[in-house]
Each structure stands twice: as structure tokens, then as C-alpha cells.
């Protein structure tokens, strides 16, 4: 291995070791109880909550796909990505607060468990579990692939991509395995900070080398003025994408875990208020760097532009500088993967294993069984990352749309007493069936023109929810459960409107 590659490697190892240390240290007390391990004892304070939610939501796409998109389509991507994600923060109140209230009172630990309990329906729990699991497992399994490519690129090919995948997965698995959600959240606090600092650093370092932002913008407008406009976007795409992100992001199951783990409402309030600031801080630098990349490396085609930031850093600076800055990409990948890992294992344990496989599992054994699921999922992630099947990649491509169609059913469960378990189940099935028809090309995307499949899918899931709920009646048990949960929420929200 060459000297520069050794320097880059040292930076990566340091970064991974610090993350591991923070995770293990912060989570050392959490494994004593099930709630402590899976929900950080419901003690996540405002700033930890903000950083863990932010770090969980920002994936490698922000540092690779987004600048790559801006390289081809221009800085108009900002509204497309940042504003839509900020809009999702409205649901940190609309969904997050009610989830927190119900979780705190009834000690729910997962989203499917909570939604099923509102209707006293195992069917709702199972359908939600299945929908969450399909998209989240697929999403989680492919994230480490990105980490492998990044480490390979940073070290100039000295470390093969598969070794990078294994390194990242081993580090993540150790701290999630040992410390559960608390370890994940505190590691996210560090990783979220790294993501913000490094992206600002990358912007300053690169823009300095190309004459400053004003000169770079002037040069860009002279050669590619279309990258400063929005001619590459249509209004239909703009609205469709807004719908996918604003409805899909707030119902990620890993976000539900964070809602349930909040110490008090202040955690959600702080996160909601700061979230749009974080989107500005992340997306302005990466998107302008992506567009400015055409000045340094013109003519890149397709996915080659996804590496535009690493390419520019390597072009101007020593590999260890690139490694330092690109720690942000690893942070984004690791934080998202770790949160998904703990959330999926909690859902499998609480919503499937305990109700259907081992009803008599003692509370003190839950952590042990949860750790087994974490270990098995990590092994699966290793296998899939090294041999990614095309079906998994298709599911990931459609994950946001798959989540978005769950939102009508989730909002109905939290707000509409007249909704029924059958209505919610049919809504999810109809919405996901619509997504599958488009995803596998059974209905060609061309029938939608510039609209995206999420628009008909969300409309269908909403219409089915309303029609089926109006056509079906609550069973006595279902009615009692709805009266109980909604009665509790109504007693709180009445004071709000007084």
C-alpha cells in the first residue's frame, strides 16, 4: 500500500474507532432491560434526538446521488431534495407526537405494535410489519455496498470494496449489538456532527480551488446556463417528488423508533424546528459542488458523476484530506444502517417472534434474542452486499413510494375514529399492489406522463381506506380499543384547542 493510501486508511480507521468507542461507551448501561436496549430507556433528549434523526435520514445519497444529480440537472435539485425533506418535519408533530404519547402510556415499542393496538388487530400489525420489513430490510442491505465503494475510492483502490463493506458492517454490528439504540443514537450525534462539518469543509476546500463561488458560478453560467435554471425539471415531477419525500420519510420505521424513544415533547419540538436548517446546511454545499463539478470534470456520463465530490477532492488534495472529508459519507451510511438494524430486530422480536413463536419469552431474555436477530441481519447484509440480487435493488428504488402509501393508513389510525382495521389493511395492500405493478413494469410508467407512480398509489390507498372503512363496522373489541386510544389522545388535544 502506498504512503498516501496509508494516510487515507489511517483516517478511516480512526473515524471508525471513534464511532465504535462512542457507541460502546454510551450504550454500556442500556442492555439491562428490553426498553433500555431497544428504546434507549425512552430517554433521548432534544439534541441527541435531533442529530440521530437527522443522521438516520441523511443517507449516502446526499453525498453521492444528490451531487451527481446536480451535475446533470442543476442546482434546482435543492427544492426537490431539501425543501421536500423539510416539509416531512411537519409530521414529526402530526405523527411523531401522537406516537410518543401512545408509546409512553401503553409502552409500545414498535410502529406495527402501536398501529395494531389502536384497532386491537393483529392483521394491522402484520400488514404493517410486512410492508416496513420489505422496504427497510432491502434498504439496509444495500447501504454497506456504498461504504465499500467509498473506502475503495478513498484509498485509491488499495482496499477492495468487499473489505470496505465488511469493515463497516463489523464496526456497526459491534456497537449496535452491545449498546442497542442508545449506542446508535450517541454514535449518530458524533456522525451527524461529522456530516455537517465535513460537507462545509469540502465546500470551502473545493470552491477555494476553483476561484470562489462567484467566479465558479460565473464560469458555470457561461458554459452550462441550464444548470442554474429548472428547465430539467417538470412541475409534475416537482409535485410527485414532494409527495414521495414528505409522506415517505416521516413513516420510516426507524423514525418511529426515535419518536417512541424521545424523553419528552421537547425532543420532538427541537428536532422539528432545526430540521429545515440542517437541510440547508447539507444540500446547498453538496448540490453546488455537484454543479461546479462540470467545470473540473466535464462530460461525465450516468452514475460516474455520483463520485464528483471525491474526484474533485482527489484532484486538488492529498488522499488523507479526501478521506477526512469523505468520512461524512461513511457517517451517513453507518448511521442509517445502524438505526435500521436495531429497528428491524426490534420489530421482528416484538411483532413476530414473541406473539407467534415464543409467547413465554421472559423479559430478561428479550435483549439476548434481539441481539441474535441483529447478528443474523448483519450476516445477511454481508452476503447481500457482496452479491446484490436485482430484485433487492428494485425494491430499494421503490422504497420511498412504498413507505408513502402507508401514510394514509397511519394518519387514519391516529386521527380518524371511523377508520377500521379492514380499511387500513386494504389501504396498505391496494397501495403496495399499485407500487408493485409500476415497479415490475406490469403497468408502464409512460401511462403517467411526467407524474410518478406515488401519485396514483397514494390516491388509491387513500380512496380504498375511506371506502372500505365506511363499508365495514368495528367489532366490539376493535371499538373498545379505538375508544381507549382516541379517548386518551382527545383528552390531551382538547386542551390545545381551548
Amino acid at each position, binding site marked *: 500500500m502506498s504512503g498516501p493510501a496509508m494516510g487515507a486508511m489511517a483516517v478511516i480507521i480512526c473515524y471508525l474507532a471513534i464511532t465504535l468507542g462512542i457507541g460502546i461507551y454510551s450504550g454500556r448501561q442500556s442492555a439491562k432491560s428490553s426498553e433500555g436496549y431497544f428504546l434507549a430507556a425512552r430517554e433521548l433528549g432534544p439534541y441527541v434526538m435531533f442529530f440521530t434523526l437527522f443522521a438516520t435520514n441523511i443517507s449516502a445519497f446526499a453525498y453521492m446521488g444528490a451531487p451527481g444529480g446536480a451535475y446533470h440537472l442543476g*442546482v*434546482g435539485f*435543492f*427544492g426537490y431534495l*431539501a*425543501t*421536500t425533506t*423539510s*416539509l416531512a*418535519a*411537519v409530521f414529526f*408533530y402530526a405523527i411523531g*407526537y401522537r406516537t410518543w*404519547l401512545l408509546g*409512553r402510556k401503553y409502552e409500545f415499542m414498535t410502529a406495527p405494535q402501536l398501529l395494531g393496538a389502536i384497532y386491537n388487530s393483529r392483521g394491522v400489525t402484520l400488514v404493517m410489519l410486512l410492508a416496513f420489513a420489505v422496504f427497510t430490510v432491502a434498504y439496509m442491505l444495500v447501504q454497506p455496498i456504498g461504504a465499500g465503494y467509498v473506502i475503495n475510492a478513498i484509498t485509491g483502490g488499495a482496499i477492495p470494496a468487499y473489505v470496505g463493506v465488511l469493515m463497516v458492517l463489523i464496526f456497526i454490528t459491534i456497537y449496535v449489538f452491545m449498546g442497542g439504540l442508545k449506542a446508535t443514537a450517541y454514535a449518530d450525534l458524533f456522525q451527524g456532527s461529522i456530516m455537517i462539518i465535513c460537507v462545509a469543509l469540502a465546500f470551502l476546500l473545493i470552491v477555494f480551488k476553483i476561484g470562489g*463561488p*462567484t467566479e*465558479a*458560478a*460565473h464560469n458555470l453560467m457561461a458554459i452550462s*446556463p441550464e444548470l*442554474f*435554471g*429548472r*428547465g430539467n425539471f417538470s*412541475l409534475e415531477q*416537482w*409535485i410527485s417528488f*414532494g409527495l414521495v419525500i*414528505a409522506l415517505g420519510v416521516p413513516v420510516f420505521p426507524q423514525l418511529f423508533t426515535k419518536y417512541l424513544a424521545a*424523553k*419528552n*415533547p421537547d425532543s420532538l*419540538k427541537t428536532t*422539528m*424546528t*432545526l*430540521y*429545515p*436548517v440542517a*437541510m*440547508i446546511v447539507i444540500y*446547498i454545499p453538496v448540490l*453546488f459542488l455537484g454543479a461546479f463539478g462540470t467545470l473540473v470534470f466535464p462530460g461525465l456520463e450516468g452514475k460516474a458523476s455520483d463520485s464528483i465530490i471525491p474526484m474533485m477532492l482527489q484532484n486538488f488534495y492529498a488522499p488523507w484530506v479526501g478521506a477526512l472529508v469523505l468520512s461524512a459519507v461513511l457517517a451517513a451510511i453507518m448511521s442509517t444502517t445502524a438505526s435500521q438494524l436495531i429497528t428491524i430486530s426490534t420489530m421482528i422480536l416484538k411483532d413476530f417472534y414473541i406473539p407467534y413463536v415464543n409467547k413465554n419469552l421472559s423479559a430478561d431474555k428479550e435483549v439476548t434474542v434481539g441481539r441474535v436477530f441483529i447478528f443474523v441481519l448483519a450476516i445477511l447484509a454481508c452476503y447481500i452486499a457482496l452479491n446484490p440480487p436485482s430484485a433487492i435493488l428494485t425494491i430499494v428504488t421503490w422504497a420511498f413510494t412504498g413507505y408513502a402509501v402507508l401514510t394514509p393508513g397511519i394518519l387514519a389510525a391516529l386521527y380518524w375514529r371511523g377508520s377500521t382495521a379492514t380499511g387500513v389493511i386494504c389501504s396498505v395492500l391496494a397501495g403496495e399492489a399499485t407500487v408493485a405493478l409500476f415497479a415490475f413494469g406490469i403497468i408502464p410508467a409512460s401511462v403517467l406522463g411526467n407524474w410518478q407512480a406515488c401519485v396514483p398509489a397514494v390516491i388509491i390507498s387513500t380512496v380504498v381506506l375511506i371506502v372500505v372503512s365506511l363499508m365495514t363496522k368495528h367489532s366490539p373489541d376493535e371499538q373498545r380499543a379505538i375508544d381507549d386510544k382516541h379517548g386518551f389522545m382527545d*383528552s*390531551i*388535544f382538547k*386542551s*390545545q*384547542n381551548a
Partner: protein
Amino acid sequence: MTGKAMFWFIMMFLPFVLYVDFWQWDTVNPIVFGWMPWHVFYQVLLNILMVVIFAGFCKYHWPKNPFND
């Protein structure tokens, strides 16, 4: 729905409407700070508006914590 609740509902919905800025779709100028096209700056302002709305909502309309912690 009370007037206060309606006010906050409209305020929370407003950014969704303002996001679809079809009336200035091709407006690049003025170039703010010498490098940021107007439509991007508009979206930045919209994000800042959301911060203000969310802060106001949290302060004035978020229900009391029933668990007193």
C-alpha cells in the same frame, strides 16, 4: 376546529403550497450573493420560513405534556 387551530393548520400547510413555485419556474435572476440563482434562494427562504412557523407552533400551539416531565 377553533380559530386558533385553523390558523396553525393553515400555517403548517402553507409551506406545502409555497414549495410549488410555478409562477417563477424559470426565474434565475437576480443571482443572490453572486452565486445563488433566485429560485434556489427562494427555497432557502422557504426553509427558513418553516423554521419560524415550526418554532411558533411549538411555542404557542403544542399541547401540554400530560406526563409532567
